[in-house]
């Protein structure tokens, strides 16, 4: 728990990349997100924590409009990316998702080769001019996903044949391959061993130099280690949002305090 002592971390208070205001999400009759207002900074890591079922994934999926694919899901309120409303009628979600990449809670590699998994995004977005460039992107992405050494000799093997943790890192590599500006990660380390977790955290820290990263996690230590800002969700409400150090050492809301000290969850 001594990670929590890292209060002194340098916080880059860059301008907001994403501004969400009065966001409400309904799944049919379930009111899953209630009036959430949050600013996600550029070049920062923002952690979403909270008990299971409190709406972290739901809110994360609002940020790249993945909720559009769920018929019963309705999103209200404003979410601005670089000042532009992503729910505007003129916005094509496909273009948005190229900018806002996502790693899902359950690893979901394509049933294709490892190479094709990573190369797919760059291919459809035309990021590589030729095979050599594509090879380079694939290698770089796999390295950043901390999986290059394990798969470099079998890039043609199916991605679904990897272990759960390897699949998740492959999905991270796939997400970073398209060079998104914002990366949404839904519990990316829940299936990883401590070594791979450390590598992914290192990657997150590196991504922060250029991108904005939002990570959902159930591990307080992880939130404390990698994030600069933390948002605590409870029953669909954003209870508290602030500097990570402050949330973990001096929470304002009693619910936050109970949660991080392990009394509710």
């Amino acid at each position, binding site marked *: 728990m001594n990670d929590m002592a890292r209060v002194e971390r340098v916080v880059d208070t860059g301008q907001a990349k994403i501004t969400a205001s009065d966001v409400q999400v309904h799944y049919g009759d379930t009111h899953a997100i209630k009036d959430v207002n949050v600013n996600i900074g550029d070049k920062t890591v923002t952690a979403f924590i909270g008990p299971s079922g409190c709406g972290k994934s739901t809110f994360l999926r609002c940020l*790249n409009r993945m909720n559009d694919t769920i*018929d019963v899901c309705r999103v209200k309120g404003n979410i601005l990316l670089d000042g532009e409303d992503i729910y505007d009628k003129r916005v094509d979600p*496909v273009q948005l*998702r190229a900018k806002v*990449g996502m790693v*899902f809670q359950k690893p979901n590699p*394509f*049933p294709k080769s490892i190479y094709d998994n990573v190369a797919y995004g760059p291919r459809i977005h035309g990021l590589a001019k030729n095979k050599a460039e594509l090879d380079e992107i694939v290698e770089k992405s796999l390295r950043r996903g901390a999986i290059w050494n394990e798969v470099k000799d079998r890039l043609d093997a199916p991605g679904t044949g990897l272990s759960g943790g390897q699949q998740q890192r492959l999905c991270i590599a*796939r997400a970073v391959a398209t060079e998104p500006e914002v990366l949404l990660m839904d519990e990316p380390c829940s299936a990883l061993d401590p070594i791979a977790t450390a590598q992914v955290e290192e990657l997150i820290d590196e991504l922060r130099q250029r991108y904005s990263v939002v990570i959902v996690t159930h591990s307080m230590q992880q939130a404390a280690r990698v994030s600069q800002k933390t948002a605590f969700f409870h029953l669909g409400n954003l209870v508290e949002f602030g500097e990570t150090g402050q949330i973990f050492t001096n929470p304002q809301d009693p619910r936050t305090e109970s949660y991080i000290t392990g009394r509710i969850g």
Partner: protein
Amino acid sequence: MTDISQSGAPKHASSLLSKDARTAKRNRAESRFKLYGILAIAVGLLMLITLVYNIVSRGTGAFTQTFVTLDVTLAEDKLDKNGNRNLDEIKKVSTFGYAPLIKDAISSEVEKLGIQTDLSAKDQAAILSKSAAAQLRDYVIANPDKIGETVQFRFLANSRVDGYMKGRVSRESIANDKSISPAQLDFVDQLVADGVIVKSFNLDFIFGADASDQRPEAAGIGVSMIGSLFMMLVVLALALPIGVAASIYLEEFAPKNWITDIIEVNISNLAAVPSIVFGILGLAVFINYMHLPMSAPLVGGLVLTLMTLPTIIISTRASLKAVPPSIRDAALGVGASKMQSVFHHVLPLAAPGILTGTIIGLAQALGETAPLLLIGMVGFIASNAPDSVASGLLSPNSAMPAQIYEWAKRADPAFYERAWGGIIILLIFLVTMNTVAVILRRRFERRW
């Protein structure tokens, strides 16, 4: 924690080495159920074996045929009186003109072998099929230069003689039969002894055309097989793209509302509509209204397309549904469009299921008879093989099951045997198609 330790004696105290009453009871129930399962399979297998045994034992006869080998002198004075080999004049000689040649040939064969018989030359020649004269005539027209020579021919025997050779016809059974007499059967026995009459494999049954009521021995299923083939081509070319496009749209793109619900219910209803309804629909729409030709495989194919579409749509939708949604999320998550996610990821995963559904739909269509009756693809029409794709689609033809129905309907028991033989061929096609479906599915599913 204290609650558990206070609850008295442990719940599972007995030894693991002996079964308690509950476990024994459950095990008995399980073995009883297994027994029922095995019994059910045994009953199914027994029925299958009976079916296959019946079909094979009744149908194999159609694949062999009795032949009579004769040397025929193509007499110039009868076939080409002027001796100028003018094809138009040769064609004027009808099959009646050839009958004397056959009579002469059989008489001289009898003389050569020294066979004693009281039969007239006409009765002797009657053991041959009525197609023998036509066979001679076709040969002469194709090879006019052979006129005047003696050529060896293999003629089909009459269906009664063929039945006698196969044990279907006996001296008792022909008591009231005017077309053959016991004396002729004696004559056949003598020719068999001399090797003039032999029973051998009959390729013409598989590749030949249907023949008229009078000549069951000459009937083959080949032309109606071509009819079936053209119908299947039409079905494949229409039902597969339409069905797959409809399913992809309904499954992946269409909004879920009451309109799509109604469409969904109606597709299921369509799958349950009896095939004869499609037949009468085809008659009303394609023939009476659109004036497409009667009995054409094109019309048959259109009708069967209507019938197969729901099957293909239902199986395609089922296989699209079976693709895990996480794959769609993954594709959308890296910024693929809906269409890219469907065509790059979902469709390849669903392909084996779609393929299997399509092949099974085709197999169903191949075996369908009822709608063909209504659009006139039955009767003595499969008589000429089509000479081009267009005529294959448009000229009157039959289809395998309709041909089988036609044969089964005719009075002569010799046709009955051919119906069974046709069933064997049809079943070989169906079994092959279903096997291919299974193999394809295995192959594609094993890819990852």
